[in-house]
């Protein structure tokens, strides 16, 4: 078991969201999409220019940017 931020999660590794370090109202949308504590998550693929990355969460593929992923801690 180890903790790391979501942007550093290796591809296709099963992980679980542990903590979300976002307090602003803007994280509401992330919550709607399933980014909440305890949710399983998997990293899938990256944009050709990097920065934005697609994740498998709650049976869907959702892409978020690195700046957002940095604030999400996961356990593997």
């Amino acid at each position: 078991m180890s903790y790391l931020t979501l942007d550093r999660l290796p591809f296709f590794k099963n992980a679980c969201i542990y903590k979300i370090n976002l307090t602003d109202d803007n994280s509401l949308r992330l919550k709607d999409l399933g980014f909440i504590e305890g949710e399983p998550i998997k990293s899938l693929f990256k944009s050709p220019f990097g920065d934005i990355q697609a994740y498998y969460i709650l049976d869907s593929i959702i892409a978020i940017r690195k700046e957002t992923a940095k604030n999400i801690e996961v356990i593997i």
Partner: protein
Amino acid sequence: MKSYEIILAGNPNVGKSTIFNALTGLKQHTGNWTGKTVDLASGTFKQDDTIYTLKDLPGTYSIISNSPDEVVSETAICKGSDLVIVIADALSLTRSLVLLFQIMSTTSNVALCVNLIDEAKKNGVFIDIDLLENYLNIPVIGLSAKNSSDIKRFKEFISTVSQETNIVKPNTFTNPNSFLTYAKEISEKCTYKVNIKNRKLVLDKILTSKYLGIPIMLIFISFLLWITISGANYPSEALMYLFSYLKPYITNGLVWLPENLVSLVVDGVYQTTAWVTAVMLPPMMIFFPLFTILEDSGFLPRIAFNMDPCFKRAGSNGKQALTMCMGLGCNAVGVTGCRIISSKNVRLASMITNCFIPCNGRFSMLITLSAIFIGGSLAKSNQSLIAALFVLLLIFIGVTTTLIVTRILTLIFKEEKKHFTLELPPYRRPELIKTLIRSLLDRTFKILTRAIRVSAPVGAIIWLMANIEINNTSILNLSADFFDPFGRIMGLDGTILLAFILALPANEIVLPIIIMTYISSGQLMDNLSTTYLSELLTANDWSAITAINTMLFSLLHFPCATTLWTIKKESGSLLCTALAFIIPTVTAILVCITTNLISNLLMTII
């Protein structure tokens, strides 16, 4: 007769609009990406002497509003109706249940419809509908919207459920986190997974790969443009021939009218309208169905995904790329599409810059001119390919300008920090025949009627301007002379500039106006082949530079009246509308002056 009002709600991309179309028979366009329905669509159907009014909401993950398309959903649900049906995706039931609970907490009379049952079965997922109904305590139906017997069943379901009153009492729990826990619990209990397959990622791996992603995207778009250019040539000429064949018959039919009036109708109105139709119809009939197939397959969100880092550097996000793709068809559609962007300032910037992407109305001219002056005179072989590549280069210039102007605008507007999220829906095989019919009806027909409505009166105006004379010179030529010095600075001439101004109602008619003014009899020649056009333009001092400047001006100049009106409606701000007019105009003038200076400089050196 009894009537009920029913709202269809659901997550994005669960096939709500497909169900809506199947129920009402109303042709509304659906696409395989978030935010396709950006406004309330409504339609009716009759069942057992009762009228049901259906309202199709934009897809949303939450009714706690985030972007304007979600506000539409929120207000509609809160306003109350006889029944809210939540459409769920069988493959991501949990997500749909969260929305269901949110809606159940604000309103009573809710029913659930689990769509895409067939697709789920293919993926080894089975949903126990009866069990789901038991747990939720509301009416539930499982179906596959593509199946017509399922739609029949759904109509019966709606009529039974509407009779009941107060299906659910408002829920007591309000914490969004507990919604998700509860949703997961129920969906786990009701879902049976046989032979779990991961969703196919092969396509995504290729389309978003580091080295192939961008090239594949470019190849797709250039291929689309090339097919449009080369495929439209022959039908365009055939239509032109047909229209000029019909002309004498129309003239004969109108002999009882005064001679001048006949000329106004036939040479002014009929000829212009015929020209616009002949030039516009074939490319639209090829471009729109192909583009719709791209849309329905789920390819467009991948473009947004690939392009996001570029747009991020411009202070925007990948969803702007989606609105730009919509702008390729029609800028007014692109501006409306900007609703999918949740950040207000990025949305305004996207609206203002949308006209830098050439819409279908400008495409025909870009294609014709580039076929004559770039493909025709500069290239020896593969003429249509070279012409297509040049149009692609123009689009590239348009995209670059969009990014630069967006960067400036978002700096001025002071962007508030938002976390950008993008949904990548699963790929779906588009239904080819339906796509063809729908895009013909929805888009081609709609845009063509608009073009005709606009070109007919403008044809009359130009005929009048060409035939009313002051001191033996027509008003048309007088105005062209007036604009000539301004045009020359930009490497154009007065006629071209006048044409752009007169064509404010619709960009389609720029070339017809130019031709009419050159012929100066106020009427188009019967046979307008490319060869003839090429001779006419060259005879009026057009060089490759003139053509390039005209194309650049067309690409970058002010949006058409419809687009401006849409921007006013969408932004609600006069300032924003004014900016949408001024910024492109200034850009176009500056760019044309620069290219003209550079080309003049090169000429003197050589």
